């Protein structure tokens, strides 16, 4: 505790760097994954191609990817860009699957009703498909957030600044407190990010709460939406999702 107070400025700087390295890939991940998933829905072949490619990429361990990427990108090995690109790849791999599941979870009747009401494809996508798939999308985002925050620390092994530095320097100096502070700081960051995502989801999907308070457990539309969301969330955990990377 004393050590933390004495070094809090440094810990906060590292935490800031850590957050940037974890959040940027999530933002890029969503920007890339949502259109990609929409594209993948156009044909069966495209869909299985995208899913196979994403689970293959997800299999590559992060430490290896951090080192392979500079060769492909032409960056230097210490460049934080490598970390952002690597984590974006994982985020896209996870989110494409989650987004496809999310779109599948939207009730087909609603989609047809929207078409019948005269929605153009793009408007239908923005106003029907996307908002209704948010709960499943957020389930995927929460997984990405936790894994990103944990993965960023690996980059410290290569000397890229973040909270993982507390582990490497703690080990070198044989100083347990520093490592413990690092673990706690990362857990707090993960918790913080998760709460923010939950809050954001609540703000963006007010209708799920409205139904939950009035008639939970009935066969209401939102109830179905919720089961769909849950089903897809579980499907995320199925074998093909690929493995962890470190």
């Amino acid at each position, binding site marked *: 505790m004393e050590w933390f107070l004495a070094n809090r400025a440094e810990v906060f700087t590292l935490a800031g760097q850590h957050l940037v390295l974890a959040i940027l890939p999530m933002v890029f991940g969503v920007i890339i994954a949502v259109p990609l998933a929409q594209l993948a829905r156009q044909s069966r072949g495209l869909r299985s191609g995208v899913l196979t490619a994403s689970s293959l990429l997800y*299999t590559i361990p992060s430490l290896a990817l951090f080192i392979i990427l500079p060769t492909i990108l032409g960056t230097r090995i210490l460049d934080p860009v490598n970390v952002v690109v690597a984590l974006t790849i994982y985020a896209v791999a996870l989110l494409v699957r989650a987004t496809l599941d999310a779109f599948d979870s939207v009730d087909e009747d609603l989609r047809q009703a929207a078409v019948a009401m005269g929605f153009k494809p793009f408007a239908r996508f923005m106003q029907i498909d996307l908002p209704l798939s948010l709960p499943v999308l957020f389930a995927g985002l929460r997984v990405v957030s*936790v894994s990103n925050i944990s993965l960023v620390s690996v980059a410290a092994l290569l000397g890229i600044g973040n909270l993982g530095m507390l*582990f490497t320097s703690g080990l070198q100096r044989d100083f347990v407190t520093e490592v413990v502070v690092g673990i706690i700081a990362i857990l707090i960051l993960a918790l913080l990010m998760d709460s923010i995502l939950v809050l954001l989801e609540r703000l963006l999907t007010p209708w799920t709460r409205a139904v939950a308070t009035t008639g939970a457990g009935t066969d209401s539309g939102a109830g179905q939406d919720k089961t769909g969301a849950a089903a897809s969330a*579980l499907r995320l955990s199925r074998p093909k999702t690929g*493995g962890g990377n*470190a």
Partner: protein
Amino acid sequence: MSNVVTDTFAWLADPANWSGSAGIPVRLAEHLLYTGLVMVIAIAIAVPVGLFVGHTGRGRVAIVGLAGALRALPTLGLLTLFVLIAGIGLMPPIWALVILTVPPLLAGTYAGISSVDRNVVDAARAMGMTEMQVLFRAEFPNALPVMYGGFRTGVLQVIATVSVVAYINLGGLGRYLFDGLVLSDFPQMLGGSLLIAGLAIAVDLVLALIQRLFLSRGAFSQPNRSQQAAVDLTDPALAGTAVQGGTS
């Protein structure tokens, strides 16, 4: 840049790197040995507990909560902590890896057992099976697909994490990354990275092949949606915990 690529291939092709105690075959064997050791210990802990919890429903909340909390734990932090407390050697990092591998396996086993159609379980009981028979003849075979999914995830996660173990003076393919880093020998780092990536992909393919050859195809068909949802709605947290994210 192209000479980095050619240097890397030269490094990979150099016979000197394929023999001796720091040769690629030895490093590969070490990598697989650590992975195997971690998996055996983790399975020995996670599967019995998962079966018990899945069958009886006791301790469900504790398991889901624990698995969720452990997901956020940074692997590197845990590894360094264990080494600082217990000293350098084979077992401290192995135990750290076991702690990280048990939760996904446990969640997979538990989720597998509780995804089994309740009608199947009731029918088994109605036929006069003992509780043990219900568990091993009805629940276990039907839970296998989900359990195997958890196992595959666990293996890949451990293979990935074992590369980090080299940082704390153990062997495995990760050695090339850290030795290369110290010497600024980029071809060696890149060669090691390609080997690790190749190993992960190869192992995943083998596991997929095993699934296709030895596990019943029927059991792997998607269960119907309402059933999946029923499992999941009771455990909103479980979906998150069972999903493997990359760690370390």
